[in-house]
């Protein structure tokens, strides 16, 4: 097998959107024009996936992710360009592909596996582990139409993850199972990755792509917007998602005013290592650093910072440097930094109001009203919470009498 598992050269794919599709001869003859338009789902995709890479495909709905996955799996043929695949491919686009309701569980294991390109010998060797995994030994000889939906899903899943192709193409549909399914699925993908197989993963779940994939591409309107390491691409994608939410709010709210005697020259959002980032995780250290230049003032300089949610303009918190007892340099250039050791904000986009004023707020030198923004994601290690804040708290429970 070569070094390149999948290569796409100038791949274009269009769908015909029929306004009224002629299915029968009568319709074909009688309808004057076959009314349809071409919708380009993929536009000039160039891609090279080295063997052993785990590639994530991310992008908003309708950006062409699934079309690309199907094109790589040869289910769809590109209109232009070529897809070359080195090695055997198994697409996992759906649970229970190839299952027939009238056949028994055992028969379906062999049928579905061969549909997915596995040989009988492969399956015979793995049959016991598939049955073990599904946990339904006693039902393997009855037709799957008599299975409960849970049993069906377990068997379909066990078959799906038993495949051992050189190249595995997984669509996110696989992640619809319950939590334990998903965990097993990710375990299996990790295993396959360790064996040096090539994996293409289409996902909406950015943390998944972030942790499982080494490389990623970001599709937007059928074109590759960004390609690189998963960490870079996910970062860029998130920044863009937050930016688009926040930018709408900025257009509506943002403004700047002030006397100009002191001026904000730069704003940065930093993580615990002092690295500038577009988004942060709940619970992580977070700082806002403001650069300023003083032209001509003869009073104490105070910096105020307020944070709002971008989606509903809710006021999250506001503080100023005077309250904290910090004095700002009142001539030349300087900086002031607000650090939150553990960011309490939950997932969302946030707008920041920044102000330089005197100690009584009677004179405002420079005021950016909700013009800068940053994003917050749920921390992968924390449970998902409701509301807007993560409040550190603990629970206690006991029998009927309260003990102090």
């Amino acid at each position: 097998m070569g070094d390149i598992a999948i290569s796409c050269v100038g791949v274009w794919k269009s769908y015909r959107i029929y306004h009224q599709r002629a299915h029968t001869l009568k319709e074909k003859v009688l309808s004057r024009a076959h009314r349809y338009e071409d919708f380009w789902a993929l536009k000039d995709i160039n891609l090279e996936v080295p063997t052993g890479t785990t590639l994530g495909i991310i992008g908003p709905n309708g950006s062409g992710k699934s079309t690309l996955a199907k094109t790589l799996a040869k289910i769809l043929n590109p209109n232009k360009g070529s897809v070359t695949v080195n090695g055997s491919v198994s697409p996992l686009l759906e649970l229970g592909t190839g299952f027939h309701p009238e056949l028994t569980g055992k028969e379906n294991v062999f049928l579905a596996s061969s549909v997915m390109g596995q040989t009988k010998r492969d399956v015979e060797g793995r049959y016991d582990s598939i049955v073990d995994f599904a946990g339904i030994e006693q039902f393997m000889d009855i037709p799957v139409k008599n299975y409960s939906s849970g049993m069906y899903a377990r068997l379909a899943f066990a078959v799906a993850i038993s495949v051992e192709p050189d190249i595995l193409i997984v669509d996110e549909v696989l992640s619809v199972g319950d939590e334990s399914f998903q965990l097993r699925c990710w375990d299996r993908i990790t295993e396959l990755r360790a064996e040096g197989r090539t994996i293409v993963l289409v996902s909406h779940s950015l943390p998944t792509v972030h942790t499982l994939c080494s490389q990623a591409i970001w599709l937007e309107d059928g074109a590759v917007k960004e390609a690189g390491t998963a960490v870079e691409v996910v970062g860029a994608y998130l920044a863009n998602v937050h930016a688009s939410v926040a930018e709408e709010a900025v257009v509506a709210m943002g403004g700047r005013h002030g006397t100009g005697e002191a001026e904000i020259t730069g704003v940065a959002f930093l993580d615990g290592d002092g690295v500038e980032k577009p988004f942060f995780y709940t619970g992580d250290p977070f700082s806002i650093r403001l650069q300023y230049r003083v032209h001509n003032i003869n009073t104490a300089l105070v910096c105020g910072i307020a944070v709002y949610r971008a989606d509903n303009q809710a006021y999250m918190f506001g503080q100023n440097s005077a309250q904290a007892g910090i004095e700002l340099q009142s001539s030349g250039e300087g900086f002031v930094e607000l650090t939150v050791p553990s960011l309490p904000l939950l997932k969302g986009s946030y707008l920041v109001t920044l102000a330089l004023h005197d100690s009584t707020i009677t004179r405002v030198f420079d005021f950016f009203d909700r013009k800068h923004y940053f994003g917050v994601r749920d921390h992968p290690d924390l449970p998902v919470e409701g509301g807007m804040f993560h409040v550190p708290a603990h629970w206690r429970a006991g029998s009927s009498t309260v003990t102090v």
Partner: protein
Amino acid sequence: MVVAGMDELLRSRELTANLVRRDLKVRHRGTFLGMLWSLTTPLLLVGLYYFIFTYIFKVKTVPDAVRSDGTEVPFAIFFFGGLVMWNLFASAVGSSTGSIIGSGYLLNKVYFPRAVLPLATVLSCLVTFAFEMSVLAAATLLFVGFPNAQVLWLPVIVLIGVILAFGLSLLLSAVTVFLRDVAHFIGVFLQLWFWGTPIIYSMTFVQTNSPGLVRALELNPMTGVVVSFRNVVMLNRPPDYKLLLYDAVVAVIALFVGAKVFGRWQKLFSEIV
């Protein structure tokens, strides 16, 4: 391209075998007799024909139904023999129209050489044929006698019929994807084709009654197959070499045209089905 397609098809023989197995299992799943139905139906038919032609029509035999040694073959057996060969062809062609459109759920989810689907349909008809063939063989041994060495032609004759059926299946299964009318049209067409093939009548019969039609019948590529099939299975006569050769040529042309059309259009199957 045709050759490359065949090569890919050959590599998917395990999948093909599994799909054939699925077809056969599903057909008789849940029935009490199961696979025995494949034997019961032809047995009942041959009994019915025997009764009708012997006691109602009082037809003993037709001019062609005479073995090389002069023994007469009962008309029911003669008719059933033609029917067994025809059924293989007609059921393969008739069910091919659904072989692609009935598998949309697979086309959209996995890649495999699409021609596997019509091939599996034809092969599962071949399995049914094997059952009918065994009933025919038993009936022939019982009522007619042992075949001679001409019966060695049987595989060649069946193969020609199967190649013709597969060629048409490729063409029709692909065309049906784009034009669903074909599924209805082919049912009627096969009825006409049945009457245009010497199954219920013999070629000599036509020769005597309306000689003008003989040429037209000989153009039907199933004529040589059915006539030769009966010749070698029950009449101890050689195949009709001339007609059989013509049929073989038509079958190969059908296969190439079918493979060409199928190969060109199969890329669109998953989008349209």
